């Protein structure tokens, strides 16, 4: 073989080296990778806590850890996974990297703020983690009063302050996205030509900016009550503990859409590319994201059905919860309709997209079950709810996240991942996921409460199945870790547009140059117009 002495083309990875070139970078692509590294760490940390939870639940007796330790484990699992993995996972990594590229911009509107937001996540995350480990926080990720005030130590407040800090990371990311979408679109990139990934991130950003300050205020109020004894949530001081739940869920229900909307954005891209058709009803899907963002703010009371909330309020919240299902269903139906008569390829990202659609549908439909007042009284605080949200967050968000990572891996790194291994791991994840969480629906329906580690003998079979599934799932998650790293060196070199996709991010070399495009692109077509790529060679699929 003759190795040509052509110097390597300059790109965002090789234009500078050394630790400072990363820690002080203002390049959205590098910051995206910093986030990728960080959230992966938190994912495996949260996974370690989950492993211990599942081991404990193998037997009906509490014989692996004490009750206190068990409470701490599920708290640390929830906090790490929700606040430090799921919330930033897609927007701050893939969103950061690709939102500017997809609209033809050279960077986000505020590159320095983008870097700041990464530091805030890291500082907040380490702070919370330290507080939880040092102080043994056992309130669950929801920090309900009076657990978190009257009956707790001050480490709870410290943990919450870590979340407060990382909340600003989320707000700043959202702000950056909003301004970028408004101000930095390339010539010709009208709103109705934006890829749906961008639309869903725009909707997400609105939630981040409008919702997160409320959880920040709530944490400050907790702090004030704890430190200055101002009565806000404590009845003996004239406060109302349910007020905490209102304020917490005003943020945290919309927050579940911070986790799922970006995932939906990825799925829209994948479904279109791998069936080589424009997304069916593009405008409906775009507006559905906006509708979810707004309606998502009107339903939080469905978490308070058994918390002495007024039945009249409960009725209204239950009713409104059914409205959120409409835009979600529009998306599912439109993705399915996109497949119709498409030229479908079963490449790994598409497998993940299929996984997402099925599992999200189950998760979303069971959301409607628990939004029904009567049914919820039966299953609230049981494993049914645990299964509901894991179907959405793990079956939905993480599936889409992995699908997106595989899809954009060639663009990010300039290398292809190994397709065979990737398909295998997607299959293992799908099977492992269902084996882990489907039994939990049954467990919950039969009455197994969440957050307990001692349970009646008759539940053991289902718990053992669930733990077995979790082991399979763990293998499935470790595999991409290994072959992604492997591919950095040994993967096939990727071309600019290996999937024959239409997005602007594919119209520039892989990995992209520092400023994304050598010349500013001019957009003349709709987002998913495959006539623009006809005749281009597709490498895979």
């Amino acid at each position, binding site marked *: 073989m003759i190795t040509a002495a052509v110097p390597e083309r300059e790109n965002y990875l090789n234009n500078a080296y050394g630790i400072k070139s990363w820690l002080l970078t203002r390049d959205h692509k590098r910051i995206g990778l910093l986030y990728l590294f960080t959230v992966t760490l938190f994912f495996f940390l949260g996974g370690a806590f989950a492993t211990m939870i599942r081991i404990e639940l193998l037997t009906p007796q509490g014989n692996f850890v004490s009750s206190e330790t068990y409470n701490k484990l599920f708290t640390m699992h929830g906090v790490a996974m929700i606040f430090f993995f799921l919330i930033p996972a897609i927007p701050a990594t893939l969103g950061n990297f690709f939102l500017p590229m997809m609209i033809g911009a050279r960077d986000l509107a505020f590159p320095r703020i983008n870097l700041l937001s990464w530091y805030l996540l890291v500082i907040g995350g380490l702070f919370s983690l330290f507080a939880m480990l040092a102080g043994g926080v056992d309130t669950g990720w929801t920090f309900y009063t009076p657990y978190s005030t009257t009956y707790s130590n001050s480490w709870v407040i410290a943990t919450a302050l870590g979340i407060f800090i990382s909340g600003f990371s989320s707000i700043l990311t959202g702000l950056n996205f909003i301004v970028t979408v*408004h101000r930095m679109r390339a010539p010709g990139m009208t709103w109705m030509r934006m890829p749906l990934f961008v639309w869903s991130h725009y909707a997400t950003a609105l939630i981040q900016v*409008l919702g997160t300050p*409320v959880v920040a205020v709530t944490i400050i109020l907790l702090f004030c009550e704890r430190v200055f004894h101002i009565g806000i949530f404590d009845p003996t001081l004239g406060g*109302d503990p*349910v*007020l905490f739940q*209102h*304020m917490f869920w*005003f943020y945290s229900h919309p927050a579940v859409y911070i986790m799922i909307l970006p995932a939906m954005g990825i799925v829209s891209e994948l479904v279109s590319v791998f069936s080589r058709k424009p997304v069916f009803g593009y405008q409906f899907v775009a507006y559905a994201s906006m509708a979810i963002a707004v309606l998502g*703010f*009107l339903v*939080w*009371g469905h978490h*308070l059905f058994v918390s*002495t*909330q*007024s*039945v*009249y*309020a409960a009725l*209204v*919240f239950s009713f409104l919860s059914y409205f959120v299902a409409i835009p979600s269903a529009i998306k599912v139906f439109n993705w399915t309709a996109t497949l119709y008569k498409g030229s479908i390829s079963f490449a790994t990202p598409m497998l993940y997209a299929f996984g997402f659609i099925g599992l999200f549908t189950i998760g979303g439909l069971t959301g409607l079950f628990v939004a029904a007042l009567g049914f919820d009284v039966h299953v609230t605080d049981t494993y049914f709810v645990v299964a509901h949200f894991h179907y959405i967050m793990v079956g939905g968000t993480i599936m889409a996240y992995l699908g997106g990572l595989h899809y954009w891996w060639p663009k990010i790194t300039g290398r292809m991942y190994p397709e065979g291994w990737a398909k295998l791991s997607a299959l293992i994840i799908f099977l492992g996921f269902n084996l882990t969480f489907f039994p939990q629906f049954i467990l919950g329906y039969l009455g197994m409460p969440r957050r307990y580690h001692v349970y009646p003998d008759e539940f053991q079979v289902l718990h053992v199945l669930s733990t077995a599934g979790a082991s399979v799932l763990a293998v499935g998650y470790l595999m991409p870790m290994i072959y992604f790293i492997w591919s950095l060196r040994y993967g096939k070199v990727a071309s600019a547009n290996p999937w024959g996709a239409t997005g602007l991010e594919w119209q520039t070399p892989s990995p992209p140059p520092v400023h994304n495009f050598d010349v500013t692109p001019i957009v003349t077509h709709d987002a998913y117009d495959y006539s623009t790529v006809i005749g281009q060679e597709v490498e895979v699929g």
Partner: protein
Amino acid sequence: MSEHIDSVKTYALVFAALIAATVGTTAVAFVDLGPFSVVVALLIAVCKMLLVALFFMHVRHSTRLTRLVVLGGLLWLLILIALTMGDILTRNWVGVPGR
């Protein structure tokens, strides 16, 4: 930036008004108005908020989009308060045995 900037005098006046309102809030706290204490305190606070937003934060001279953002924030605050009060005010409509 090419935006309109108010004169120093305007800023000084607004600042004086804010201080006066603060003094007002404190003074009212010493008068027993029953449930209206809260109402008066909140009214003064809203006026102060408007002064800060309109003058100090330049919303008065901002684009329509910026105003929309401000209004959106207020609307969301309204949602938070309205639906929460929807619970709190109707909690005792249904009699609870023993209460």
